[in-house]
């Protein structure tokens, strides 16, 4: 492999001119060398200039910005002084760009084949027919199933995972030497994200091109990148090979983001101290045979969101409910707090059967069963003050006098680590972290026993995320709440949960003790899910594994469910019999429950060992 650099940037600066004539420097003295076959990551907080720097390497800046200094040598040519036509020739042919939001990056009225072949024909003298054929080949290469049909699809007919693949096919159609990807996988599910990053990594390794990846996710950096750049306030503050960065980061800032994303600290001790007490804790929530179907308007078909789900939760326990989008995990949580009416099934809270009762009859139980939503700003009345938000549950469930209510509000703010002075603020005046603390304070206002946490941290920045998680753990330890923690963030689940429930397409496929499931997942779906999740850990990089477990294709539609096993068609260890054999959730001798006949009958284990 040649070692002549593909791209060499030196002292690149980008500034934005404000309305009043002042200059804001967004990128300051950015220097970078990329060699063939390299996978380089740029990390930093939102607004640190990482995206701006990455696209400035192509000579592009969003107006009213401009490149104020520096040079970019691409294969020995200076890019920044080239004429517009010449640099346009290089973009798209030699440098590919994949942007963040796939849906809005495609033309809504042209077929994807048309768009890919246009890009290809802009840089290569070929016939329309040949370009069309090339588009099909590219789609096949990026792992799109049935490319001959998909090539004629429009953007709205594709899922977001497929749209992202179209963009990567477009960016790679001319086999660029350098691929710049700006958070290409944000918003994708982990199994799709893994498929996609594997694809990029393969391409870089096999064709000797290079990848520059802008990301906020340490997991991606740890698993794929060779080298990482850390940016803060427009400057590169650290550049290191990825192993060195994880072993011995130089900068305080790097150490801090590593600590937060790895979720170190006293996490383990909290968990261990907690663990012993739970052995004989009473079961407070038990659901059995829960179904939820949504009728589709104007058709007699139904969306099967939740399909025969059963589990129980003990006092003080944190149970993780994981799965990809569309797995029905949020619907389960919403049924538990009666924001959805279950179609069938039993929900027991202590001795009370809540499954079939009327919504009005559920109201008294809301004192004890609470929920924290994903988007904290959205879950507070925008015209109310914090005090009013926190007083509402007290008004509804207690008969404290106004004096005591005010005292309770102050107490709640203190418990959630907020300044009592914030009580007269409106939600939009608070930071996202403060907003989520207020929402948590509201949920615990009436001393509940059980709280559904519906992706409570996914709208937060990595640093705020860990603070909120620590707050939740501390509250549970002190006040004995049981949590159902719904999340797709397996790193956090691994950190805080006692038990894990894995859902796929509305069904529970595996239930087990957290340590056991994470150490050795047994259901084929759990295996793929855990293998696809990118833990920020360089000792077990996905690209170094001999066998990368992935699922084929995408999650099927929950409207027309498969006849046999729901994973049939995607499962790496399927047999013909799986196609027509509905699967049951069976308890194993070690206390785990698994929905796969090959595992429960010992067939799959034998096949592997």
């Amino acid at each position: 492999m040649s070692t002549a650099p593909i791209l060499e940037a030196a002292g690149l600066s980008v500034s934005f001119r404000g309305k009043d004539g002042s200059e804001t420097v967004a990128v300051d003295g950015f220097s970078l060398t990329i060699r063939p076959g390299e996978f380089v990551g740029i990390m930093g907080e939102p607004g640190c200039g990482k995206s701006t720097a990455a696209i400035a390497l192509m000579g592009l800046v969003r107006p009213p910005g401009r490149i104020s200094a520096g040079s970019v040598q691409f294969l020995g040519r200076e890019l920044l002084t080239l004429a517009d036509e010449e640099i346009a020739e290089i973009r798209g042919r030699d440098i590919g760009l994949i942007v963040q939001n796939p849906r809005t990056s495609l033309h809504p009225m042209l077929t994807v084949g048309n768009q890919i072949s246009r890009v290809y024909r802009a840089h290569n003298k070929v016939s329309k027919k040949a370009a069309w054929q090339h588009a099909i080949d590219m789609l096949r290469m990026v792992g799109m199933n049935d490319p001959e049909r998909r090539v004629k699809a429009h953007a709205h007919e594709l899922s977001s995972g497929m749209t992202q693949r179209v963009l990567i096919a477009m960016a790679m159609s001319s086999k660029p030497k350098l691929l710049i990807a700006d958070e290409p996988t944000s918003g994708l599910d982990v199994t799709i994200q893994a498929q996609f990053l594997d694809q990029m990594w393969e391409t870089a390794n096999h064709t000797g091109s290079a990848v520059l990846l802008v990301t906020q996710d340490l997991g991606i950096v740890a698993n794929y990148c060779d080298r990482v750049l850390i940016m803060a306030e427009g400057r590169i503050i650290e550049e290191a090979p990825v192993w060195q960065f994880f072993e011995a980061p130089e900068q305080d800032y790097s150490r801090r983001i590593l600590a937060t994303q790895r979720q170190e600290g006293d996490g383990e001790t909290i968990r261990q101290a907690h663990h012993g007490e739970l052995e004989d804790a009473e079961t407070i929530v038990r659901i059995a045979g829960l179904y939820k179907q949504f009728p589709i308007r104007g058709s007699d078909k139904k969306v099967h969101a939740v399909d025969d789900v059963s589990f129980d939760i003990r006092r003080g326990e944190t149970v993780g409910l994981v799965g990809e989008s569309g797995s029905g995990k949020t619907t389960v949580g919403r049924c538990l707090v009666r924001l959805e009416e279950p179609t069938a099934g039993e929900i027991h809270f202590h001795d009370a059967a809540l499954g079939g009762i009327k919504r009005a009859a559920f109201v008294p139980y809301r004192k004890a069963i609470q929920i924290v939503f994903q988007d904290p700003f959205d879950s507070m009345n925008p015209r109310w003050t914090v005090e009013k938000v926190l007083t509402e549950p007290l008004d509804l469930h207690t008969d404290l006098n106004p004096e005591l209510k005010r005292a309770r509000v102050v107490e709640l703010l203190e418990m959630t680590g907020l300044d009592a002075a914030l009580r007269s603020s409106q939600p939009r005046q608070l930071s996202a972290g403060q907003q989520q603390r207020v929402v948590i304070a509201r949920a615990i206002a009436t001393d509940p026993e059980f709280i559904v946490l519906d992706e409570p941290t996914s709208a937060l920045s990595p640093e705020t995320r860990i603070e909120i998680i620590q707050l939740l753990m501390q509250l549970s330890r002190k006040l004995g709440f049981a949590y159902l923690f719904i999340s797709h963030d397996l790193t956090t689940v691994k950190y805080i949960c006692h038990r894990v429930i894995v859902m796929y397409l509305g069904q529970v496929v595996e239930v087990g003790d957290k340590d056991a499931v994470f150490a050795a997942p047994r259901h084929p779906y759990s295996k793929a899910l855990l293998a696809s999740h990118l833990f920020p850990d360089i000792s077990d990089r996905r690209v170094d594994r001999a066998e990368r477990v992935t699922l084929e294709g995408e999650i099927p539609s929950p409207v027309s469910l498969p006849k046999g096993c729901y994973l049939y068609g995607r499962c790496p260890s399927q047999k013909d019999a799986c196609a027509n054999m509905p699967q049951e959730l069976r308890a194993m001798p070690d206390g785990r429950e698994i929905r796969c006949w090959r595992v429960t009958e010992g067939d799959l284990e034998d096949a592997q060992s």
Partner: protein
Amino acid sequence: MSIAEPDSRQGAPAPKRRRFARLDRFSGNKFLIFGISVVALSIFLAAFGAAISPYDPIEATGDISVPPPPIVEWPRLFYLAVSGQLERPPHWFGTDQSGLDVFSRVISAPRADMSIALGGALISLFLGTFLGLIAGFYRNWATELMMRISDVLQAFPVFITAMILVALAGRETGNLVLALVLVYTPIFIRLTRSEVMGQSARGYVQAAWAVGNYGFKIAVKHVLPNSLVPSLVQLSVTVGFAIILTAGLSFVGAGVRPPTPEWGIMISIGAQQLILGEWWPSIFPGLAITVTVFGYAVVGHAIEQKFREA
């Protein structure tokens, strides 16, 4: 959007978008002061217009078809009138062919025009918001039926509907207000309903259920206060249209009975004289309508701006 949103959530002062700097200046303070003045004046004249008018608006003076004094004379005339040196107040806007003082009639007309227009619009607002809240919050066959009925009402041309109603029920003020209510309530129902449906999907409404509120209380306590802005903006526009409709009905003879001072009647009577070159009996009430409608529109725009930020 995805870039701007986190910023505003962090509580940092989000940079104000100035895409239409010209329009912003248009809606600036001067125009707002103008708009508020017009609204205030219209209400003041509705109450006291007849009382402060220099002549009795329905009693003929001796002067028939007197043109208004030239505008350069007005300051001098005003001074003379105030200092009591004139034996009769001047006919600022001239007189019509029956000898009625146009100025007195123009400032007395808001009593009829404004009470009908404001009354009709306000009743439509309250009724439409209430029905829209129900229709948006409970979505069942009954509220669907209500929406279909309001669709039918909206399908008729506004003017024709009002004319038919007044023709059937009689030219009483109450019937005119009723006609406006029937014509404008569906607009408020539809506006409120769509806003209520949008707001009901928001997380805070879900949270309101989860906290332990129940039923229509959620609609009143949480959804309604967050669904009012479009209707309030629509109110001022509706008042403007209602003025035009009231005057229009009178113009065709289906509204207020002459000789009640009313802008539409004045235009109708004055229009016949236009051909003789007597422009003043119709132009001044016409200007009054224009200025009033514009003033209400400016205030509506300002309400929209104000509450969008919140």
